[in-house]
């Protein structure tokens, strides 16, 4: 866990140099399709896609242990400035890596064909990892070490991924800037004076900085997509029920989804292929999903389409998302992306998802109601923080919750409890459920005319650090483009489509993401549209 973090500074520097030399040697050997892509920062070694990396490991050009070691070294070097990670699982990662190398050396069946063989991955810290502390960014779970892997994590491991660490987040996912983490702030690699977004800000920053190629995030109302937009990465929120939530520390149970943050759309498809599928023994809500598709093949098929790859695809631009709250810079980039989609042969039309403001408010009532229930289990009785000298069961509970939860979490629990209370539930919780049905109907009619829907992912570029604290209501309201897909359980992806001018001294431009929303379980079609658009990106 404390891999080279403190004591061995000198040998570390030497190693980095050695690695740089090595990486250069590999660079000439790898095909450079993605090398022109600038939105991944300089890396210690040269793989820029999962496919590249896995191939090189398969061909014996680099060992899993070497990849893992380099990754850990790079995180150690770079994360001081960014703060993406809460925990590094170095020792465990190295032993897993060596085990994979041994299997490869022993030609153990199935090892060399693992789709994510040797891929170093970062996992958002609200997803359980056996033997690695999991805190959800909260003091209430400080030191808690799960005994089991979340299904998503187990599937990644089975596909050959190596877990290198756990990433920072807003406490229990409650925030949009990662500033409400109980531990520390995470900075945006694109502009260190700004937030990477949230709540999956740590995962997004880890990918955006190039420390890892892929990370797991979770999305309850935009927590994968908005950080992806702010950091210029690709964030996919799968359909509710597509990926098992077993092992996810619940925030809003009816909208929580685990999904990938990656540098490219294809990598997103690769991760989804590993993650997707029913988990009938652990998560009943996955049983309603149809069988997962081969997302990688779907994206490959999109890549090979001819001149006008989106001919016949009807894309609905959600009208209201260009009318409400959107910054000019964001609006311009999105308009440009729409023009490019049209140039690719897509039929663009405007569709309406009315009452976005109301849906955003209703989302908060719904999610905070659920959160007030989901966070009731953190009472210090069985695990997690327990105050010293606790007298009775009641003082244990009061003490644990009082000391363990941060201000934002307490506020949200209070709001959620209120929304469900006798005498108020009709006006708040029930009303939000009614609005939710209204929203589903709106999506249903939008999908009668369009195959996929698009909108800006977020109305703004990355906030400067500290801004959210001063304007909480604005921060809540800025979720209005991402919460509709969450409430309706639809798959949605955010991919970088351009940059808007920055107002801060430490950056010239900041990334802007486009959100593509699909019909239930139609992840393949949004990945295809995203990939085709990505191929035309000039950044």
């Amino acid at each position, binding site marked *: 866990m404390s891999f080279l973090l403190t004591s061995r500074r000198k040998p570390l520097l030497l190693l980095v140099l050695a690695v740089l030399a090595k990486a250069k040697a590999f660079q000439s050997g790898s095909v450079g399709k993605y090398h022109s892509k600038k939105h991944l920062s300089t890396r210690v070694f040269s793989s820029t896609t999962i496919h590249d990396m896995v191939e090189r490991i398969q061909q014996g050009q680099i060992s899993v242990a070497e990849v893992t070691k380099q990754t850990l070294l790079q995180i150690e070097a770079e994360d001081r400035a960014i703060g993406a990670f809460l925990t590094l699982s170095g020792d465990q990662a190295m032993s897993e890596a060596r085990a994979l190398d041994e299997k490869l050396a022993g030609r153990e069946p199935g090892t060399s064909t693992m789709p994510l063989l040797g891929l170093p991955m970062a996992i958002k810290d609200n*997803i*359980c990892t056996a033997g690695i502390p*999991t805190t*959800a960014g909260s003091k209430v*779970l400080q030191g*808690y070490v*799960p*005994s*089991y892997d*979340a299904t998503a994590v187990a599937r990644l491991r089975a596909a050959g991924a190596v877990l290198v660490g756990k990433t920072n987040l807003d406490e229990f996912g409650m925030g949009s800037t990662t500033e409400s983490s109980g531990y520390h702030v995470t900075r945006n690699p694109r502009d260190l004076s700004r937030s990477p977004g949230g709540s999956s800000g740590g995962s997004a920053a880890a990918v955006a900085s190039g420390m890892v190629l892929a990370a797991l995030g979770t999305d309850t109302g935009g927590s994968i997509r908005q950080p992806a937009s702010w950091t210029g990465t690709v964030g996919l929120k799968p359909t509710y029920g597509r990926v098992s*939530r*077993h*092992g*996810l*520390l*619940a925030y809003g*149970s*009816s909208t929580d989804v685990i999904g990938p943050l990656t540098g490219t759309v294809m990598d997103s498809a690769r991760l989804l292929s590993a993650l997707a599928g029913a988990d*009938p*023994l*652990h*998560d*009943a*809500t996955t*049983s*309603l999903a149809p069988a997962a598709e081969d997302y990688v093949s779907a994206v490959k098929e999109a890549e090979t389409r001819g001149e006008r790859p989106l001919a016949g695809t009807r894309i609905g631009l959600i009208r209201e998302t260009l009318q409400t709250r959107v910054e000019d810079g964001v609006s311009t980039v999105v308009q440009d992306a729409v023009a490019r989609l049209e140039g690719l042969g897509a039929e663009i039309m405007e569709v309406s998802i009315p009452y976005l403001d109301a849906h955003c408010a209703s989302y908060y009532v719904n999610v905070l*109601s*659920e959160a*007030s*229930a989901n*966070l*009731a*289990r*953190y*009472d210090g*009785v*069985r*695990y997690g923080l327990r105050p010293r000298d606790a007298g009775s*069961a009641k003082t244990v*509970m009061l003490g644990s919750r009082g000391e363990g939860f941060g201000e934002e979490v307490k506020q949200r629990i209070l709001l959620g*409890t209120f929304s*469900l*209370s*006798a005498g108020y*539930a009709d006006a708040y*919780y029930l009303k939000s459920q009614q609005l939710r049905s209204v929203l589903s109907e709106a999506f249903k009619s939008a999908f009668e005319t369009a195959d996929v829907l698009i909108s800006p992912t977020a109305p703004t570029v990355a906030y400067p650090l500290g801004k959210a604290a001063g304007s909480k209501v604005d921060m809540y309201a800025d979720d209005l483009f991402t919460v509709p897909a969450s409430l309706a359980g639809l798959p949605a992806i955010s991919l970088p489509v351009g940059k808007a001018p920055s107002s801060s001294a430490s950056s010239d431009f900041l990334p802007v993401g486009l959100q593509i929303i699909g019909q239930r379980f139609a992840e393949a079609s949004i990945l295809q549209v995203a990939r085709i658009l990505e191929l035309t990106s000039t950044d």
Partner: protein
Amino acid sequence: MPGTLPVLNKEAVHQSLRTALALGCQVHPVSRFERKHYFYCDLPQGYQITQQASPIATGGSLLVEPPLHENQRQRAPRKRNASSPHPGLEGDDPEEAAWPPFRVRIARLQIEQDSGKSTHDSAGGRHTLVDLNRAGVALMEIVFEPELSSPSQAAACLRSLQATLRALDSCDGLMEEGSLRCDLNVSVRPAPPSPAFPPGPWGPRVEVKNLNSLKALQTAAAFEIQRQIALHDPGDASRAGMAGTEGGQDLSRFNGHFEFKSVERETRAFNAATGETTRMRGKEGAVDYRFFPEPDLPPLVLDMDWVEAVRRGLPELPQATRSRLVEEHGLTPAQAEVLIGEGEAAVGFFEDVVRGGGGREGRGVANWVCNDLIGLVKAKASAGKGGKGCAVVASPYTSSPALTGQAGASPTASYAVHPEAMGELIDMVSGGEISIRTGKEVLALMVAGGSEDEEGGGRGGEKRQRPREIVAARGWGQVSDETVLIGVARNVVRDPGSARQRRQYKEGKEKQMMKFFVGQAMKETGGRAHPGRMETLLRVELRKAEEEEMGGK
């Protein structure tokens, strides 16, 4: 653990469905789950998943019958002043009015999550121990309409439910182990001055938690009724008799306008040691459960074809079994009760014995099974020999712990005694081959696994001796040689020690004295004389002796 999600247990749905169908409930094709929130150490999630708004089944009813014997009634301990009986109060009164059987309606049957088990008494009451092993396991909750009017009715209702659940095998009904638990709600209201007046309003409902036996239920109900009546009229509780039923005492001053100001809506706990209830929390401490739909469990949608298949597969219910046993086989209600209480297997065993041989009489067979066999097998099981070599022949019956001699019987349990062997024994007794007393000894040997000299060989059940073999091997056959019997009769009658009895026989105490002489004869023959035949011979001998005495004078 953090991160884990609930998954509905199919078997829990199956058993709830079977129970609902057996109780005549309306089964709903779609039911839903909600979260019910409160903080307590035995509730790991901080909420319980339950079915509040749309349970799996509603309606239905349960037949409640009065207990069979007066002495079976468990009476509440009389804590209060004996000088204030509450005449109108059923169940608490020794002369509680008999009530006819009736059906109590069922409000709902729902599936919910169990909580952990708290033990409060350890370490001198300073600690509460929590056992989370059952937390999260599915349970079925059955809510009855408020139609029970007395502690004895409440107990009878629970007893009837217990028998039904056991017959269905959807619950073993063991209250002391917590597999069946009961919460009680009690309200009282004033009696109208006469039947012409409408009854007054019900008082506030008081809930009593976790009653873990029939006795606890009945005691708690009786205590709670008294407590509530005394509360609203502390000065003259004796005049305020009324516990749920109409037709109490003449209480003109209550007159339907009485307000139960002093009874508070609250939740109380029952203390089995004192027979009293104590306050847990009141209305101001009432929990706002903040129900909302459980997002982690999709609605439960039942395949109605499956529901019908389950309905067809239901076993006979105790009430139907009882009437069959009483009407077809001539059993007394008490005998039927005992058999049914032992479960489906016991009834099956009984019926196999009856059908196994021509002319076996139901009541007689039941006597053997209920009075002798069950007791012997239970004694053996509790002596620690249960399950070891006590089976005669593997049988297809299921789950009668007593008859199999095993505490949790397996689905393919074997009998301690094979029905054919039991039948043979009964035939031998009724055919006069052996006496009843010998029969009982033979049965004991059959249950014990053969005679001592034969034991220890690890013999398979099939090889164990039939009753006729046991009798033959031990020479226990009834003595039928007339000359031997006459000799015995003569010896008994002419025994000088019996002179007093002979005189009394002569002086008219024929009946009692005959018993004595038969007893003597049995002693002489080791119980192998046929009592009826012996009596005849004794009469002859007694007459002879009398004549000789008279002749001698």
